């Protein structure tokens, strides 16, 4: 049996493309907005403030333990809306596929997008599909954008951050980065480690309240980069206690072997929150009740000094600056 492949004709606007859109995308993503297949989709929101975001997904490998590019493209955009204090509602999806890409893999990606949408309670309401010549793209690129309705109780801004506020992380860090690294062929380690790729809107809506000053998802660049961004934008230093940061054993081990730091590894289902000191334990308690927040921890606090730096109290007892990631993390030689 020959494998069904995507050809340039699938993106040419003709019958093949029409069949693909109806038979694959509308069939799986179908909803009253999308089914109309109009040039644009008319939506309505009942709130005054809404959040709008976009992101492109070019991950390699496209399938990894715990997810794939499709799941990631939904979770990533849902999470960007969530950390802005919004309830994600509508998603757009643009796909660019390389000529010769396997139909079965495209179907698998579509199905995992469908599952992620269901989990997050969002609808894909408009989309686009393009095929480019072989070599002009690497298998598949996906862009999604999303609109979310901002919660009434959400008052999230770095401007509200004050000394004494606590820093909470919603679980173990570095899982996604480590799982993707392991999935790349050149590393011959085996592990049951899964990416943490998940929509975190449920977790956010279960805790959102006025005492949460700021939320961000520590994706590329990891926890260290997110903390530095918060420190720079708020101008306050942040002090972190390394011994409080939750990290899974396999992630720790992989990083030790390769000379990488988990604090710079990407996450796709975690959030970092800045919460006023008086409400920190209450918020932490609520987070722990949610399945995606079970391992939440208070890992540090906002300090009085304003040099826009993050300090890490190391496990050994020393203190050092925790800087932004510069360039890519590369495994060491010896």
């Amino acid at each position: 049996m020959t494998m069904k492949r995507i050809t340039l004709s699938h993106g040419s606007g003709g019958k093949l493309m029409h069949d693909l859109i109806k038979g694959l995308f509308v069939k799986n993503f179908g909803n009253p907005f999308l089914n109309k297949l109009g040039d644009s989709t008319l939506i309505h929101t009942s709130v005054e403030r809404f959040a709008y975001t976009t992101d492109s997904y070019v991950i390699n490998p496209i399938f990894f333990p715990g997810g794939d590019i499709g799941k990631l493209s939904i979770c990533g955009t849902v999470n960007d809306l969530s950390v802005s204090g919004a309830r994600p509602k509508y998603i757009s999806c643009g796909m660019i596929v390389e000529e010769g890409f396997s139909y079965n893999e495209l179907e698998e990606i579509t199905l995992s997008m469908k599952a992620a949408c269901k989990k997050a309670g969002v609808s894909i309401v408009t989309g686009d599909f393009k095929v480019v010549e072989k070599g002009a793209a690497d298998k598949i690129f996906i862009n999604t954008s999303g609109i979310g309705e901002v919660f009434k109780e959400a008052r999230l801004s770095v401007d509200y951050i004050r000394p004494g506020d606590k820093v909470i992380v919603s679980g173990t860090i570095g899982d996604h980065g480590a799982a993707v690294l392991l999935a790349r062929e050149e590393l011959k380690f085996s592990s049951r480690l899964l990416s943490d790729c998940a929509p975190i809107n449920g977790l956010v809506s279960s805790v959102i309240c006025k005492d949460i000053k700021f939320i961000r998802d520590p994706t590329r660049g990891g926890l260290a980069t997110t903390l530095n961004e918060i420190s720079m934008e708020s101008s306050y230093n942040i002090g972190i206690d390394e011994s409080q940061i939750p990290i899974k054993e396999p992630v720790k081990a992989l990083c030790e072997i390769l000379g990488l730091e988990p604090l710079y590894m990407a996450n796709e289902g975690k959030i970092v929150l800045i919460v006023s000191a008086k409400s920190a334990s209450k918020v932490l308690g609520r987070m722990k009740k949610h399945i995606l927040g079970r391992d939440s921890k208070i890992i540090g606090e906002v300090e009085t000094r304003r040099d826009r730096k993050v300090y890490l109290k190391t496990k050994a007892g020393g203190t050092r600056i925790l800087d932004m990631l510069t360039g890519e993390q590369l495994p060491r030689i010896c």
Partner: protein
Amino acid sequence: MKYIDEFRDNKIARSISRAIFKEAVGLPHINLMEVCGTHTMSIGRFGIKDMLPENISLISGPGCPVCVTPKAYIDKAVALSRLHGTIVVTFGDMMKVPGSYSSLEKEKSKGGLVNLVYSALDAVDIAEKNSDKKIIFLGIGFETTSPTVATSVIYAKKKRLKNFFIYAGHKLIIPAMKALVEDIEVNIHGFLCPAHVSTIIGTMPYNLIAKRYGRPCVIAGFEPLDILQGILMLIEQIRSKKSKVGNQYKRVVKKYGNKKALELIKEVFSPKDSEWRGIGILPQSGLALNKRYNMFDAEASFRLPGIKTRPDTGCICGSVLKGIKTPVDCKLFSKRCTPQTPVGSCMVSSEGTCAAYYKYRMKT
């Protein structure tokens, strides 16, 4: 994996630190050199300098393989990547090191065939899969890396590969330490000797430094407790005016090292005079493929046009590698020279002294 956090225990670290303070009372200013780049990074990462008395300075040595690789080597590697039908294969660290006119990363972005691998054996695989191409592996590193590169050469010979080559830039650690103690500018009272290199060479070779040159040596692991204990062992020697080879890393390092690995090195390589970045040519301090394996020698197999290597201007990498100066003494440090725009290799390598000082804002 167990035994990571066990070697980072705060309480034990504090108690060793207290012992170091006690032992150092009344001693003059002591300079201890951590020879290896991984030690430098670990000292920064765990804030070790915070835990030492003021009269104990840790200075970084020439033990980062990428840093000591001379610019001329990078220039040649770049030229090799431009040859028709070649693929240059390298460890990741080498990609960004600036040569006189370009870097491997820049060549790759321009379409040059440069592949990144995690093991020298992967380079043999690439050679097998690309029989129409000539594969040149950049063999750099100390005694830790050279046995694996030797293995790849032996494999290639067994598989009768005609398209696999090594551009050998391997270095040996003891000749470098010897050159440092013979240099009158250098003021080192003791050496914290590398962990990984010592697993291969063992404790014996350091006797030259400890006995003949009277500089105490202690081999230490890379974890914070290892490093602190290593420092304590050095100070104890200095205090009691002894000079011998101590081994803190007994759980891994043995007296005669790893015999199998040493045999592999001997099988494939022989010592040669070698140029070190910023330091110059040190006698018998590098490794070249020996006669039995010279058909794999890239330098002998590819003819390159004469490349004029441009000297560094302003970069004080050499003095930093010798421990005479620290990165903060450099006018370029964190101004013109940053990890994004590195001038010298010490800023780009993940184990480089300048990169460690930049990343962890280390004190001198």
